[in-house]
């Protein structure tokens, strides 16, 4: 930081790194694991000056981990990060900034109560006779704002600016710190259509000014418009890399999904049947033998799946549900049906689920469980009518880390099991034991603290909370049911959920940003974008590729797809022809 005290020097900093001209950013063989899960597996990424490098991959592919290693939030296990020719094996957040890396996260780090100028100079204020030199700062701030073509004034309070302007302020701040590498993490996610266009123009300007730009996005349209090079991450590895010529969308989608969609011919049926996309139906059927909770005879396993749209009884009926940031939403989940809500992070799925669970107040609409209209004001109310939620943020909202596995499963239920106010220890052990067997908990030790279990087994504990012998809910809401769960346990969790729906007729509504998961687990899947349902896929149409296409092709402008019309399974085939 010591050498950063004069932010004016940045104007020509980008091009002057010496005759050899090393790329502004070169990441080599970067590895990072989290408790056995390989988040980054020997990832390489090179971004020279004046390049916009798109970083693609669906949620959990390793993009965030990569960015966080670059920004110094995580130390990588091995590998080097070279910024402007200087290699680092690890960076602290300070070192990262000093090296010239600026990361603009989706959640901006501007201080709303300060002015634009104060934000830009935060932590590197110019002083004159011990006082902040406001005038000089404002002059430079104005220049920087000009450079990013921001329309706000240096004296505006950031909290009063629209999102797009705040983002530009943050970019200006990065420029003031001589950034040579600019990372934009899904920069258009929170922007309106016109703001997105303006941002694209700024990105092009900054490229011309010689910055190396890493552009993280889900939208293939943005890649086509802006990117000079593309890297696709999948399961922590570089699944695809290309420079120069623009990529066909199909190729990128294949790289993101692992080529599952491309293996077969165009017909959607073939694709559904191709390797990897095994349907919930097949697996559900195969799981019946493995997981067999006592006392529940298996009904016809095809009942819920043969015609899910016309399911015999609706367990959960939602009409016109509205809340902050979403709605109105209509949906129906039948008995034994698994309905998916697929959409990108921030599309409002979590809020929908939390509203159904009474965690948030609905501003309108009706919810019925069976025939009964419910208006849960608190989670306890929702649970009382048989609705349970397994939240996405396992650590913050689900788990009791220091408490035992048995406590984690049975805490909400010990009261019902207790006799005359005294815990029924025998019954607790028995319920836990049979649950642990049914869900394949490993290790099946009731006394082990939940924090000692793997992510997958922790998730099983949270599921088990609502589906054990002592407490079985009618409607199970799952938010990102396998986030941070390794591949093997993921399948087991799907099996548990499928079996539950089949054998007990539980209505399952889950939200996922992982198309693979949505395609594998759901009988029927709604596509959610900016708080609204923009399409529905079911049966053979419900494939990973179709889901990806539906959201990635969604225009940054207000959704053109009409709310009722189902998104076609392969809407982007013409693009493929044209772009290749």
């Amino acid at each position, binding site marked *: 930081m010591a050498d950063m005290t004069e932010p004016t020097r940045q104007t020509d900093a980008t091009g002057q790194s010496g005759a050899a001209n090393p790329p502004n950013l070169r990441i080599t063989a970067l590895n990072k694991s989290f408790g056995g899960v390989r988040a980054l597996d020997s990832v390489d990424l090179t971004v020279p000056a004046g390049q916009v490098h798109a970083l693609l991959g669906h949620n959990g592919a390793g993009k965030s981990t990569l960015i966080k290693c670059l920004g110094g939030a995580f130390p990588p296990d091995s590998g080097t990060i070279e910024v402007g020719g200087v290699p680092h094996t690890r960076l602290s957040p300070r070192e990262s900034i000093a090296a010239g890396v600026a990361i603009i996260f989706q959640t901006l780090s501007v201080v709303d109560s300060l002015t634009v100028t104060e934000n830009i100079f935060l932590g590197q204020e110019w002083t004159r006779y011990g006082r902040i030199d406001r005038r000089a700062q404002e002059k430079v701030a104005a220049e920087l704002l000009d450079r990013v073509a921001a329309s706000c004034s240096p004296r505006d309070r950031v909290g009063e600016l629209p999102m797009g302007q705040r983002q530009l302020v943050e970019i200006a701040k990065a420029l003031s710190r001589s950034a040579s590498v600019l990372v934009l993490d899904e920069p258009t996610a929170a922007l309106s259509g016109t703001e997105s266009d303006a941002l694209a123009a700024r990105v092009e300007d900054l490229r011309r000014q010689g910055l190396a730009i890493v552009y993280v996005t889900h939208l293939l349209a943005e890649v086509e418009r802006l990117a000079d090079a593309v890297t696709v991450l999948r399961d922590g590895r570089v699944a695809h890399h290309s420079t120069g010529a623009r990529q066909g969308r199909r190729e990128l989608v294949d790289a993101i999904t692992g080529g599952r969609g491309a293996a077969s011919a165009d017909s959607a049926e073939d694709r559904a049947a191709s390797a990897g996309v095994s349907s919930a139906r097949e697996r559900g059927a195969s799981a019946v033998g493995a997981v067999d909770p006592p006392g529940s005879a298996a009904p016809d396993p095809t009942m819920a799946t043969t015609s899910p749209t016309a399911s015999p009884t609706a367990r959960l009926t939602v009409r016109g549900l509205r809340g902050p940031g979403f709605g109105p939403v209509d949906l129906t989940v039948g008995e034994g049906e698994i309905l998916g809500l697929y959409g990108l992070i921030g599309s409002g799925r979590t809020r929908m689920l939390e509203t159904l*669970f009474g*965690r948030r107040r609905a501003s309108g609409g009706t919810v019925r469980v069976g025939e009964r209209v419910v208006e849960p004001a*608190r*989670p*306890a109310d*929702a*649970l*009382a009518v048989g609705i349970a*939620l397994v*939240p996405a943020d396992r650590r*913050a*909202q*689900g*788990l*009791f*880390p*220091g*408490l*035992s596995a048995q*406590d984690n499963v049975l*805490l*909400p239920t*010990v*009261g019902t*099991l*207790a006799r005359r*106010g*005294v*815990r029924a*220890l025998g019954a607790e052990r028995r319920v836990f034991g049979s649950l642990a067997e049914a869900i394949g908990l490993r290790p099946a030790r009731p*006394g*082990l*603290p939940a*924090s*000692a279990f793997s992510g997958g087994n922790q998730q099983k504990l949270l599921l088990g*909370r609502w589906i054990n012998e002592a407490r079985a809910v009618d409607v199970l809401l799952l938010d990102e049911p396998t986030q941070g769960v390794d591949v093997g346990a993921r399948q087991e969790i799907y099996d548990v959920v499928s079996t539950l729906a089949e054998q007990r007729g539980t209505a399952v509504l889950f939200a996922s940003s992982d198309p693979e998961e949505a395609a594998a687990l759901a009988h029927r899947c709604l596509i959610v974008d900016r708080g609204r349902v923009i399409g529905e896929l079911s049966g053979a149409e419900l494939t990973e590729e179709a889901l990806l296409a539906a959201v990635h092709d969604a225009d940054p402008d207000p959704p053109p797809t009409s709310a009722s019309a189902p998104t076609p399974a392969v809407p982007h085939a013409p693009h493929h022809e044209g772009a290749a």
Partner: protein
Amino acid sequence: MTTATTATAAERAVPGPRALAAGGLATLRRQPLLLVLALLVLVFQLSTGSFLDPGNLRGIATDAAALAIVAVPLALLVISGYLDLSVGSTLALGALTAGWLAGEQAQSPVVAVVGALAVGAAVGAVNGVLCCYLGLSPFIVTLGMLAAVRGLAQQLFPLPLSGFGDGFAWLGGARIAGIAAPVVIAGAVLVAGALFLAYTPTGRHVFAIGVNREAAYLSGIDVRRTPFALFVVTGTAAALAGAIKASVLDSAVSGTSGAGFELTVLTAVLLGGVALSGGSGSVLGVLLGVLFLGCLQNGLTLLSVPTFWQQMAQGVALVAGAALAYFGPRTTR
């Protein structure tokens, strides 16, 4: 520190019935303070020669009783993620109320004690409403109540009270099967606390709320009522301890009764392995913390160590204990 240490602390803190039956070695591993306490006793016995005399032990037990009576409910409150700093003042108000009723008002000892308990419960209820239902910071609320209740006590009883009568003296002086009444009461509180934590649903909820309040709320657990009740119980217990002290001393002084008591109790609770961050702790640990402080104070007094050195020893013990818990061996992760 939080995840790693609370995880291990909580596992040891939640003794299922099986753990209770487990051997002494396992207990020792879970409660390193037991070893420290044994060493302390050994050192004091060797250096004074009279530390283990029955008379002295009875003295320790009686002194520690008031501490234990408040430490147990306070520990539960801390486990659920809250805190009560007002217990010293509540103790004073309880002592004065009981003494005033028994002495000046010449009420029966039962009325005196019940009156004190009611006052304590009221103070606890105020704390509980402000912290649990209005969501104010327990640190700020109870720090404020520490001052406010002391002020109230001084306003109501500006002069020292004494001469509470023989009936009231029974509370502090009677022997039940050879054991002093306060010790019997403290024993009952300890057993009740341990049983509550291990064998009632609400006892499990105390841990759940302290470990992860949000998760407890999303699990349908009432995250306000239980800590509120614990505030009321803690206030009541503080007043009971005050009544006992008034009975033992046959006097109560609004300016000095229970002054600094809140910090001693909290020290015992924390020494006993209850995490200030909530979610872990055990009644056995609290008992050891109370006994440790009782023995330390008594032994140093026997050795004629000046009071300020005793206070320093207490402080050093707390910080050393915390440091040991932080830097000591961690079993998981």
